[in-house]
């Protein structure tokens, strides 16, 4: 099976005079444009004593600007069918939306107002505080979120910015005043770290001109990007059980720290992770735990290299009576891969899959915008879509075996199980 010719992106990148970067890609699939912008104001920047500040800022930042009240802004976006999403990762606050191409100029101006001139109206701060606390309470009732957050806290202990709860706690949110939100925005959001992707049915040169008009006047530089300390790999195996009465299923989160994005082993780890827990619905883990043993509806591994060493995580949802069996199966698969590596055909399949899936990944405006944003954030270059297949193809069986030996060590795994007590649920345990 040959893969189709990958036609390649042709993005235009311009640095604005204030330090912001604009990347535009013209597509003609349909009459729409996706805007994807970010500033270095993620949850990793939260003050230790005020966890959740960035998340709280993200929930209020689009509720009123110097030129639009909260209602006027809502009407201006709604009237164009636009839903602006503001999110936070460890490093960034991101702003994404899609609009009709005829509306792109007005929508860029609205988004620029949100990013550069939010006014944090006191009544909106109080409303969003209540909804943030409700969202935290929902997370506390979700075994998958509870298990994942507890695993991250274990892997990144000692106050590392990757280990803290991004939304904070009900108590921390309760204690954050409006002035702290204003100060956080002032300290961290600025043109020096602003990236704006504009992808869709607008000619690239015009998109850059529109972005310059919308963002070029922002003279505030903001803060520096987050520079997290290196993560400390675990030395011993730890297991934590969090009992959540009333739940029907247990969620397992099992993981390690891995590598930072610039690490040359990134591509070998990506291929290893694909074989372990991604390819064809969950890779080897899916084959063992879901297909052969029928224990779980979902089981997968994920690998999230970041500025600092990101997590390599296995997750599964199983009947409470099968938790021990599932963890044993994860141990066995990891041990086998560390001992024997992957087979030549598994590696070839993983390479075909990852390179062959690029046209799908880059089919939509949203997909292109996210890809270009990540490539620019990690300094991978505008031609990264052209280079990625070669980087993957260059990985050898030995490279994959080496990273498997280095990172897949059950005796150093951190494990968290969140769910009901083992004897609380009927149903159909594995027989």
């Amino acid at each position, binding site marked *: 099976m040959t893969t189709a010719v990958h036609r390649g992106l042709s993005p235009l990148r311009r640095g604005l005079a204030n330090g912001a970067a604009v990347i535009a890609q013209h597509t003609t699939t349909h*009459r729409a444009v996706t805007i994807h912008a970010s500033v270095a104001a993620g949850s990793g920047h939260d003050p230790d004593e005020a966890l959740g500040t960035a998340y709280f800022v993200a929930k209020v930042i689009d509720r009123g600007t110097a030129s639009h009240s909260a209602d006027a802004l809502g009407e201006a976006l709604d009237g164009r069918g636009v839903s602006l999403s503001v999110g936070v990762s460890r490093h960034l606050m991101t702003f994404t939306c899609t609009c009709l191409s005829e509306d792109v100029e007005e929508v860029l101006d609205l988004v620029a107002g949100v990013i550069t001139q939010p006014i944090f109206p006191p009544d909106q701060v109080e409303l969003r505080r209540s909804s943030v606390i*409700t969202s935290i309470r929902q997370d506390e009732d979700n075994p998958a979120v509870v298990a994942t957050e507890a695993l991250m806290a274990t892997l990144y202990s000692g106050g590392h910015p990757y280990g803290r709860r991004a939304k904070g706690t009900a108590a921390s949110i309760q204690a954050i005043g409006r002035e702290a939100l204003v100060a956080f925005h002032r300290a961290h959001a600025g043109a020096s770290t602003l990236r704006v992707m504009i992808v869709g049915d607008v000619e690239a040169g015009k998109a850059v001109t529109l972005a310059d008009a919308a963002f070029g006047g922002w003279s505030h530089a903001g803060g520096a990007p987050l520079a997290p300390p290196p993560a400390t790999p675990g030395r011993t195996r730890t297991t934590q059980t969090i009992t959540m009465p009333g739940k029907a299923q247990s969620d397992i989160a099992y993981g390690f720290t891995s590598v930072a994005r610039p690490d040359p082993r990134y591509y070998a780890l990506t291929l290893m992770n694909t074989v372990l827990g991604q*390819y064809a619905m969950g890779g080897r883990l899916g084959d063992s735990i879901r297909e052969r043993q*029928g224990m779980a509806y979902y089981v997968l591994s994920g690998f999230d290299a970041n500025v600092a060493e990101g997590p390599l995580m296995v997750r599964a949802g199983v009947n409470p009576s099968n938790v021990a069996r599932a963890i044993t199966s994860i141990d066995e698969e990891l041990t086998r891969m560390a001992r024997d590596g992957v087979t030549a055909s598994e590696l070839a399949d993983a390479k075909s899959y990852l390179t062959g899936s690029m046209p799908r990944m880059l089919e939509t405006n949203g997909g292109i915008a996210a890809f270009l944003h990540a490539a620019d954030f990690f300094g991978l270059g505008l031609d990264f879509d052209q280079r990625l297949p070669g980087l993957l193809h260059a990985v050898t069986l030995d490279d994959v075996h080496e990273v498997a030996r280095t990172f897949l060590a059950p005796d150093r795994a951190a494990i968290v199980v969140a769910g009901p007590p083992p004897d609380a649920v009927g149903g159909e345990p594995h027989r």
Partner: protein
Amino acid sequence: MSSASLELTEAGSVRRAVLNNGLTVFVRPMRTAPLASVWCWYKVGSKDERRGQTGVSHWVEHMNFKGTTNIPRDQVKGIIEQCGGSWNGYTWIDQTTYLETATADALDRMLFIEAERMANGLYHSDDVESERTVIISELQGGENDPEQVLDTEVTAAAFKAHGYHHPTIGWLSDLQTMTRDDLYGYYRSWYVPNNATLVIVGDVDVDDALRRAEQHFGAIAAGVLPARVRTREPEQHGERRVRVERPGTTAYLKLAWPAPAASNPDFVPMLVLDAALSGAKGVNLWASFRNPPQRSTRLYRALVEKGLASSVFGALLPTAEPFLYSVTCTVSDGTPIASLEAAADEALAAVRAVGITPVEFERARHQLRARLVFESDSVTNIAHQIGYFHTLGDVDLYYGLEGRLASVTIDDIALVARAYLSPARRTVGWFQPVDAPAGGDR
């Protein structure tokens, strides 16, 4: 193509053919990426299930990834990934569907997979047993989610007779007791070309794609379809209420009313009404249904902006028979559910009394037009819409949406608000979190 009758559907440059065995084939060329998406739809879903076999449609879908005569069990799940492709399937109340999206040169392979799935599923007993526990795990995962638990209860209360009563995943005891023969019998009855729709969208030549479809599917024999369950929901006289009490942290409120089917002339006015109440979602369940523009809508302003709810979501789904229009709210921490319900009642009563304003009307229509554009951004999503609406009854339900939207009047919105949002025909659901029994180390 001598063995098929052909007709050209102009809207959206879609070609439709019907093979001699009854298989309907749609092909739409779209050359914006070197990709093709193939969907094979079956007009069978959980509403077609008999008592004692709830969940069989969905379980059959799972079994149809377990190998066929010519695709060994261990090759099924890598067969499309080798081409960089993705695959999936879903089952809902009216339909079961399977898809592959991959580079266009994998078209033959995608068609081969779907033809095998239609005719040659293996259904080994061992696989039935291992999948039984996977599906029960899926059900239990859903039970961890209070919104899903409440949705199941409200839907079951709103439909006491119609097949939309039970959840698509089925009731646990049916999943524990169904046999391999139940599954295989259901598969053989419904998975026939005269109950299926094949959709091909992407970087393909129409005549070539139709020829390949004929090659792969032409020899599969038509079947005699079982009689469908014809039970209709009796008229509802008076509000129904359900209350779920389980350990949890957060309360939820759900209001639901019987809604028009997609083919009903009231469906599009109801879409506009929903957009005015809670923001336009479009009509693509696969792609775009989340995150509507809603900050200026009636319910957002009355409930979220007043601090009573942290979220509100309205849902009107295109269905073959009358289903539900629902509004689901996450209750703000510390707010009594009754206070939120009273505020929702007040907002809805105002819309029933006088309809919506011209500004709301135009905004809602513009949002819907924009969402129809946004949700057609990939070969996968476009192919989904063609197959989804054809399986509901007619693909023109989809291609006619813009026209129907253009001809809706503001008075239509007031009429459907009065007709459908009646307090006497609604079902109200509360999820009331209760304290967990003591125990645990948390």
